């Protein structure tokens, strides 16, 4: 009886945003008199960082420091309509709506600054640190706070903006399936190493090496958080989780976390991540949304690695010790392939 090591590979792409479109999201942006901005959304932060990524997008577009922006989410009385946080649509759809709203608010702020500086608004730039100045002449400047104050208390204008982003609905041809499913795709490839115990049938994932292409990484820490968590979930889908262990039989359905198994910290494999950034032409600053796709390559990579290790094909997920042992028995023991 022995432990067998193997490696498995998989590569995927993933459609970003709700399939077929037809899913608008809106944003409102407004400034207090002192140039501090609020972004109002009805979008949901599930822990993925919706509030934070839209905050950075708004600050970048407005040209103010991120500290000058806060995002308020999900009150139907104050936040404009959003289809919701699903289908990898949050960053892509809501981010674009926030850009549009912030651009409108920025334009008012720059017009007020232009009036105060007695220059043309088209000649003004922001430095991202709270100042607006004439392009090429940093000394002719006004703070974003002073510009917002002037707009509201001298010019009687609201420094605010409205944004909406919509990809129009696509038709689907019943006969050919012709359609425009989405406008951009994220990508991933992964090699997983496993160790298979031919006595117990247990499979342990011992290492993961991945490359994820996510468009522009709008916040690299939030991207990393998604990729680590998502790959863990993929590993869990591959070899641990199901609500129906004998599907399609409904027997033995788990009812709590002592029967619904997931890998704990001790089961986590080291995950070496490489991030590639090919900006999406229609994504906010090129961002795509890494949240969903990061789990997907792990599932097939694990079964391919098991085959590499012991020569057993597991075509039904999740991989269980029972399936591995039955496979080993059917072929008379481990038959390592070692192809990768």
């Amino acid at each position, binding site marked *: 009886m022995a432990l067998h090591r193997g490696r498995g590979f998989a*590569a995927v792409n993933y459609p970003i945003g709700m399939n077929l479109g037809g899913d608008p999201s809106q944003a409102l942006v407004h400034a207090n008199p002192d140039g501090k901005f609020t972004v109002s959304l009805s979008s949901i932060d599930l822990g993925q960082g919706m509030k934070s990524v839209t905050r950075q997008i708004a600050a970048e577009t407005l040209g103010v420091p991120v500290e000058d922006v806060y995002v308020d989410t999900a009150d139907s009385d104050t936040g404009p309509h959003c289809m919701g946080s699903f289908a990898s649509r949050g960053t892509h759809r809501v981010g674009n709506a926030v850009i549009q709203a912030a651009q409108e608010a920025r334009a008012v702020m720059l017009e007020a600054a232009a009036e105060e500086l007695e220059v043309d608004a088209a000649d003004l730039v922001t430095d991202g640190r709270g100042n607006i100045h004439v392009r090429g002449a940093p000394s002719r400047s006004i703070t974003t706070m002073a510009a917002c104050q002037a707009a509201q208390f001298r010019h009687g204008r609201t420094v605010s903006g409205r944004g909406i982003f919509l990809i129009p609905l696509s038709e689907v041809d019943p006969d050919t399936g012709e*359609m425009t499913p989405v406008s951009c795709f994220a990508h991933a*490839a992964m090699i997983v190493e496993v160790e298979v115990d031919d006595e117990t049938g247990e499979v342990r994932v011992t290492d993961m090496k991945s490359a994820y292409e996510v468009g522009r990484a709008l916040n690299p820490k939030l991207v990393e958080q998604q990729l680590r968590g998502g790959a863990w979930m993929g590993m869990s889908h591959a070899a641990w989780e199901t609500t129906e262990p004998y599907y399609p039989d409904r027997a033995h*359905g788990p009812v709590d976390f002592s029967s619904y198994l997931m890998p704990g910290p001790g089961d986590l494999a080291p995950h070496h991540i490489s991030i590639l950034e090919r900006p999406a032409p229609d994504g906010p600053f090129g961002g795509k949304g890494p949240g969903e796709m990061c789990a997907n390559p792990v*599932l*097939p990579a694990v079964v391919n690695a098991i085959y590499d290790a012991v020569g057993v094909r597991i*075509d039904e997920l999740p991989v269980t010790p029972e399936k591995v042992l039955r496979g080993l028995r059917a072929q008379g023991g481990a038959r390592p392939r070692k192809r990768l």
Partner: protein
Amino acid sequence: MRTDSMSNGMIEFRKELFADERDDTLNEIGKPTRRQDILGHVTGRSPFYDDHLFHGLLHMRCARSPHHAARIRRIDTTEAELSPGVVRVLTGRDVPLNLNTLLSLLDFGIDDEPVLSTDRVRYRGEPVAAVIAESEAAAREAAAKVRVEWEVLPHVLDVEEAIRPGAPVVLEIYPGNRFVYHGRYDHQKLRFGDVEAAFRTADHIIEGRYQISPIEQAPIETCGAIAAPETNDRYVCYTSTQALFFSLATTSKLLRLPSSRLHFIGGTVGGGFGGKVDSVHEPLAVLGAMLTGRPVKFMWDREEEMQVGGPRGAERWYIKDGVMRDGRIVARKFTGYFDSGAYTRLTSYAVIKAVGHLPGPYTIPNVHADVYCVFTNRTPATAMRGFGITGVDFAIEAHMDKVAEAVGMNPIDLRILNAYRDGDMKAHRRVAKNCALIECCQVVAEKAGVQLTSASRAASSRQGGGGERGRIPAHTALDQVGRVEGFDTGSYARKPARQAQATAARPAAAAPAPAPPQPRVPRLEPSRAASAAPPIPPAPAQPAQTGGPARSGPIRFSSISGFRRR
């Protein structure tokens, strides 16, 4: 070469790739800014829906079906109502519009699922009554005292058994146990080129069967909502929803309440992963608040989250590839079955998403897919991370490994050889752009020390695509297999009636003879069975289903509003 300073051995940013397509000098974008909500999260002080407690809060628990399928002869709530602490027991009669399909807000599908079943249950765990009591324990105790006279019916749990003639019918409006697409077919088709002709020219034929079982989203915070009457004749609802206006609009529709009387608050959610879009809790919590005049909480416990909350649905896939000796895949054929469970929820849409994804990130000149949304007597499936894609990606990539072995290639070389590139035509007839699969494969191979061929190392997503690869095949084989009659042209998107311009090249195998012309019927009333199964008499009308077409909700929150004449 690797220019990123944040690399710590476990993560690196390969900034040199696609650098000419990015402006990396922005102020805030690309910075690892700390989350605005992190302090609240790590100190346990961020308010989630369950933190909004009210004086006099009532608790709701459901009585549920113990059977996979049964007719309800009688629901007796007398004993439950007398149970200590019980304020009110709701049944389907209390729900103003007790029938919905989630995607009716997108004008897609037929209302099929009651909030509380009155006449029939179609899965184990389906709710038939909701007890509202002073404490959760009292509600739990009383829910066990709801007496139901069941007439157990035959059930079906396997997707392929469910579509055989004579299988028990899960949902009367879909007599073939298959969702109907575009009013025309019992599945969604993808046709690109001619796979059968290409199979005849291929050096290898490689076939496989794959399956993924249902998976629980497993958020730490279980799904739920707390609703309370406000003093201004409105109802506030704190919710764990992933889609605030989806839940608001669903509540508005089912309770026949203008959206202006609903104030939904959410936005900070303890994990979703797709399991919090079904809007199961909000309508019942608000209804409870309306009927008792008090705040009501409806929240699943962990067992409900795992067994009656919609999981990632199971899928079964058959793949057949035609492959040349050098590894080029020249034809790929799919048959896919999505297990929707007892009701449609979102599975009809998952099928279309999957079809738009096929044949995976590869340029294959001949692709054919038949993908079915199948009804079975299990918990309705719903969204989960990777929705519509995770299962088929598992199938495709496990299959690619078999293809690599059959042609004796390194599996990474095989992917790069077949990878889609900018300018290639995809099977759904749109040109690929912004591709990066090849580069991901190259980076992983380099990291893992896998030796690629020189052709693989030199390949690029930005070169070698388009041209012949960017053209739609001159000939696509079409067919009428799976044609159904009697359904109006309901579709995800309404399509003006048009004749298929390409000529059907193959005889329509197994297609029923054309039906005689018949008057158009409302979509709610399929007039004929979609399969050879004898017509099933319609279920007794839902008590609350009067007053116009059930699917026209009071409000729509989609761009598709007005897209369709009624």
